[in-house]
């Protein structure tokens, strides 16, 4: 059901914010013969999911499972071969970029590698303000406000990404994502490139921001234990399909699909030592 922009979350919690139905994406390998087309790669097969308003939704899978393809589709960075996506009740699929402003304003992404996702030749001030500039929104004092929200000193605005550690760079990426006051945040393996001691800082920060701002979070990871800490709901992906989904604690305690079980067993833990 469409809702007008800016509706507070509390008024309609649990109502779907992101809805994907029957998503498929087929890539073609480059052709190796003049007579035959290149082989088809089914990166996604008939994937459906619903992310409720204010929900923390985790997607788990190994490389090649299709989770990055799914993310690209959800963010309208790529088009599905079949299926539909709706955001906040409005269709995303099949629209030209100029009609996607509602999505760009309300859905932002944090990438895995904070080094390659921040332009090394831009100052932090310009990096964080970029989504606002791109959308034609006033910048004003927003950069200082955002840097403060992610725990960076105001002086950071005049520096370049290489002057920061990995954890601090990920804070910059989060500040940038939050700039247009989005309703939903998509995080693609945001802590995989970080050291353990810093991982906790970033996960705590994400949790605080999601709570404070009432964000909807789509959190992608290869590590089910991280997803369990962050999310309520999880979808396990394997070979381009969602093989299991549900409340994360249930999936964790009693995995129904053999792949989920294999995934859980393979994760090394420190628990056996204590």
């Amino acid at each position, binding site marked *: 059901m469409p809702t007008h922009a800016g509706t507070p979350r509390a008024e309609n919690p649990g109502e779907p914010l992101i809805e994907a139905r029957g998503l498929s994406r087929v890539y073609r390998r480059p052709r190796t013969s003049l007579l035959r087309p290149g082989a088809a790669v089914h990166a996604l097969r008939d994937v459906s999911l619903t992310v409720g308003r204010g929900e923390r939704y985790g997607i788990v899978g*190994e*490389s090649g499972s299709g989770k990055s393809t799914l993310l690209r589709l959800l963010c309208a960075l790529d088009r599905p071969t079949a299926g539909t996506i709706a955001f906040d009740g409005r269709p995303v699929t099949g629209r030209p970029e100029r009609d996607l402003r509602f999505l760009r304003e309300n859905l932002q992404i944090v990438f895995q590698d904070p080094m390659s996702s921040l332009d090394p030749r831009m100052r932090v001030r310009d990096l964080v303000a970029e989504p606002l500039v791109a959308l034609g929104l006033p910048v004003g004092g927003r950069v200082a406000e955002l840097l403060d929200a992610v725990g960076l000193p105001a002086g950071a605005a005049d520096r370049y990404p290489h002057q920061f*550690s*990995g*954890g*601090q760079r990920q804070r910059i990426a989060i500040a940038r994502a939050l700039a247009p006051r989005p309703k939903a945040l998509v995080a693609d393996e945001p802590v995989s490139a970080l*050291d*353990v*001691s*810093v*991982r*906790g*800082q970033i*996960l*705590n920060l994400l*949790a605080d921001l999601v709570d404070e701002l009432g964000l909807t979070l789509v959190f992608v990871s*290869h*590590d089910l*234990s*991280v997803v*369990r*800490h*962050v*999310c*309520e709901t999880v979808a396990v992906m394997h070979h381009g399909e969602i093989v299991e989904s549900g409340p*994360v604690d249930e999936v964790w305690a009693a995995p129904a699909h053999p792949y989920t079980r*294999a*995934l859980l*067993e*393979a*994760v*090394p*833990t*420190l628990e*056996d*030592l*204590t």
Partner: protein
Amino acid sequence: MLTVDGLTVDGLGVRAGDTELVREVSFSIGPGERVGLIGESGSGKSLTALSLMGLLPEGVTATGRATLAGRDLIGVPESRLKRLRGRDLSMVFQEPMTALNPLMRVGAQVAEVMTLHGRGRREARARAVELLERVRLPEPEQLARAYPHQLSGGQRQRVMLAIALANEPALLICDEPTTALDVTVQKRMLDLIAEVAPALLFITHDLAVVAAVCERVLVMYGGRVVESGPIREVFTRPRHRYTEGLLAASRLTPRGTRLPTISGSVPAAGHFPGGCVFGNRCPHADALCETVPALTGEGHAHACRHPAG
């Protein structure tokens, strides 16, 4: 600390110009022993491994003493090292794609390390296939004719392991061998490493991985070993505050609770505080910590003025 067979490292230091990167690292690995070296990026663990291999980048020099089966590894000319490297000790690197030659078939790459150390070409080729089978690669005969890009990440890492094992080395060094792999592939690789390694120095930042493979662990921070001992002891009763913080941060607490963290971040090389290297991030640091604490204790040793537990 006189082991004739295994690896003995005594007072190892690494420096680049005036910057001290690794300081006073001492440990030993007996035959058949599996030792983990853990720490965050920038703690000096890879430099420690590279200095043992004699592969330090230009301008970076190692001091101190390290011997493997009585042979010196540090401060000896390249011509001597060349005979040891790949034969008496070998290393598996983190990135199999950059470590393998993209223009050479993998079988030839496994054979090369044997012909370089004086084995006949035909014999080396036959043994290469055996080795590929030993690291559990399917259809080793066909696979030997494949190029690295035709293999998956896990398969490439197995090829690296086959190369490392080719000359039956006395010591295998693995530097984050599974960081680039998926968890299910990682598990099989770790089981394999634990099974085939003669004596192992296993470098990782992942505490759970080291617990799965090693018996003993060295915790490095700021270029020093700050704690060492049997895995179970170190991980259940950590003494150094850094190890304590690292363990706390590695255990994910239930949803809705705050994760324990270590404040700040790892300083850049050369910017660690004088005295205890962890002093500027430690909640227990005081004036006492301004002098360097020595690594003390038999078996389970730690270098901390205010140890936990």
